[in-house]
């Protein structure tokens, strides 16, 4: 205790003597990602000798990270200047962040995917600068597709259902009783909102709440989509899929026990690791489409936001914009396979050489569906829960899809007070 008091004293004296500004960035704790963030901080400090940038690791689980942030906001703590925030938080947390447009983000905003910028803009204020992104992908086993005589990945859910069933029957007959056709995220949590939004949107069933603020979830296309997914449980997907998150799905897939998987891009490099049972035998494609719809991927990813309680918002904003700049995102893409939010980077030769599968991701990202987090702010968490709880009840067979979507609609109406309506075809 004595030592930390002493350290505090030194720090106080030091900062007074050299007018050193300290900026603390709360970021992910993940191995390589953290190293890249530290390296970026180092580069910033070299260019700006008057500034010290600290990187604080925060829990990797989104919910845990949120609860830590909330404690800091509740205390109006000036100790953290820059926050790494989930794509679904800008709406809910907007009041705690400065408008980055006032700190020079105007010039760079249109380099990023417009869907993300729109998502991060609350009442005309840009509360977070996009840092890296994520979207749902279909993983498929190239060796098994070939073995069962298919030329390519499925483009419709119907095809996927049929192919998964054929491969599953074949592999089970060939002596693997643990084999399943399709694995995904079916637990009752935010991940199910992502998966189910993809089904619904790809059936032309809208995005729960339209960007104009109309609740559209209770429509025939959405009901069909959820019904189809429920029919997978116990046929081409294990019963246990209703308690699967990302890692449960990946573990099964990477052990070679699934023909298809819906997951985020992170599973790509892990699947090709040296000790992976499926290394070199899989590829990714956009998720399939429903009848009359087009493929949809739910948008994920992280932004950098500057705290309103920061003592040095100008410097903090400068650090955030530096870390999210073209050069920095390029380094993160090349060295860490983190998906850039700057569109031009998907055509950058060096990026494509380092991570060839990025080229095919551009279309996925440009067409990605954002969750209705900004339009339903500050109640997105409650809206999402109403939706995934309803979908989960269909997957486990406690409600019919029609009832569940009616329940979700009523719930969301009570939460947000918005009007209901039909999704507009776009």
């Amino acid at each position, binding site marked *: 205790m004595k030592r930390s008091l002493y350290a505090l004293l030194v720090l106080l004296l030091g900062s007074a003597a050299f007018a050193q500004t300290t900026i603390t960035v709360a970021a992910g704790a993940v191995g390589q990602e953290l190293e890249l963030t530290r390296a970026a901080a180092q580069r910033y400090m070299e260019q700006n000798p008057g500034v010290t940038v600290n990187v*604080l690791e925060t*829990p990797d689980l989104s919910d845990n990270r949120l609860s830590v942030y909330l404690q800091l906001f*509740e205390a109006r703590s000036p100790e*953290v200047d820059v926050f790494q925030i989930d794509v679904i938080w800008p709406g809910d947390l907007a009041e705690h962040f400065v408008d980055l447009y006032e700190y020079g983000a105007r010039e760079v905003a249109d380099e990023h995917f417009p869907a993300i910028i729109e998502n991060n803009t609350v009442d005309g204020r840009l509360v977070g600068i996009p840092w890296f992104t994520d979207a749902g992908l279909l993983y498929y086993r190239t060796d098994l597709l070939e073995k069962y005589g298919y030329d390519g990945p499925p483009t419709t859910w119907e095809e996927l259902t049929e192919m998964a069933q054929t491969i599953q029957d074949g592999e089970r007959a060939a002596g693997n009783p643990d084999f399943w056709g399709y694995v995904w995220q079916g637990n009752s949590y935010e991940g199910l909102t992502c998966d189910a939004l993809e089904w619904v949107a790809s059936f032309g069933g809208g995005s729960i709440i339209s960007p104009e603020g109309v609740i559209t979830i209770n429509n025939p296309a959405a009901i069909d989509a959820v019904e189809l997914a429920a029919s997978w449980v116990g046929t081409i997907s294990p019963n246990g899929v209703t308690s699967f998150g*990302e890692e449960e799905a990946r*573990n*099964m897939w*990477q052990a070679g*026990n699934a023909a298809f998987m819906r997951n985020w891009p992170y599973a790509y490099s892990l699947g090709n690791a040296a000790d992976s049972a499926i290394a070199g035998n899989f590829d990714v494609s956009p998720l399939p489409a429903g009848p009359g719809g087009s493929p949809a991927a739910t948008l994920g990813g992280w932004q950098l936001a500057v705290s309103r309680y920061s003592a040095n918002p100008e410097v903090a904003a400068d650090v955030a914009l530096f870390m999210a700049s073209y050069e920095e995102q390029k380094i993160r893409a090349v060295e860490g396979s983190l998906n850039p939010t700057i569109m031009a980077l998907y055509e950058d030769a060096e990026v494509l050489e380092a991570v060839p599968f990025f080229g095919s991701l551009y279309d996925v990202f440009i067409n990605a569906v954002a969750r209705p987090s900004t339009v339903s702010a500050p109640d997105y968490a409650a809206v999402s829960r109403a939706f995934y709880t309803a979908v989960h009840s269909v997957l486990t067979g406690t409600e019919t899809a029609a009832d569940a979507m009616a329940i979700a609609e009523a719930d969301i109406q009570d939460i947000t007070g918005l009007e209901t309506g039909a999704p507009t075809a776009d």
Partner: protein
Amino acid sequence: MRRRVKPARVVGQVFFWLLVAVIFVYLMFPFYWAIVSALKTQAELIRTPATLWPDQPVLTNFRSVLSNDRFVRAMGVSTLVASSVTLLSLVVGAFAGYALGKMRFKGKAPSLYVILAMTMFPQIAVLAGLYAVIRVLGMPAIPSMILSYMLFTLPFTVWVLTAFFRGLPDSLLQAAQVDGATLFQAFRHVLLPLTAPALVTTGLLAFIQAWNEYLFALTFTIIDPPSRTVPVAIALFTGEVARQEPFGEIMAAAVIVTVPLVVLVLLFQQRIVAGLTAGAVKG
């Protein structure tokens, strides 16, 4: 086996050892699974059907945990925090327990209820308020953890020690008083040695409770990473890429943390009991 043993005794012995074996297996099998999982490669960890013993045990998980400076540091912090909490709870709790168990005074029952009521709110409910108090006091993370853990260890030690003190016959205390001992001397030389096993057991339980605490520690150390405790450090274990969960490493950490804890605690237990009992006045 020259002596003839009664058959009933043999059956009894067999039954006893069988019971011991069953208890041992029951207590240990999840921990066994943690050890086995820590020794497996990532590929074998997710293989179906699960293997009951690794095909090729590897030490990579253990190595990467032990080479993680932050984890090693966290073990030190946890030891410091949990020992301080235990010591403080025992001293303060023994005073209170003695008063509540052995003395007559007005307001005893309300005191017992008030102390017990401290543990009746869920941790999450008091977290924000507690964080505010700590910020007002300007307390660094480690002392603030020590202080706030008293919220659940102190009521427990007070109640257990009250029960144990009360179980000792008054006559003993009065005998000491007849000998001209002050209350404090009676406490130190008569009651303390007698309650040594209870003190050590209570301390042990409190120590582990403090050692395992996660929610307060996570919040109080947000902006002070060097003060993170083991549960927080484990929660911050991550894979190479986001979302990947290093299950093997978590299991290795569980084993690394648990085994020395159990061994140390057992060694200490005997020492402490012996030490405390030594001061006893002989009847």
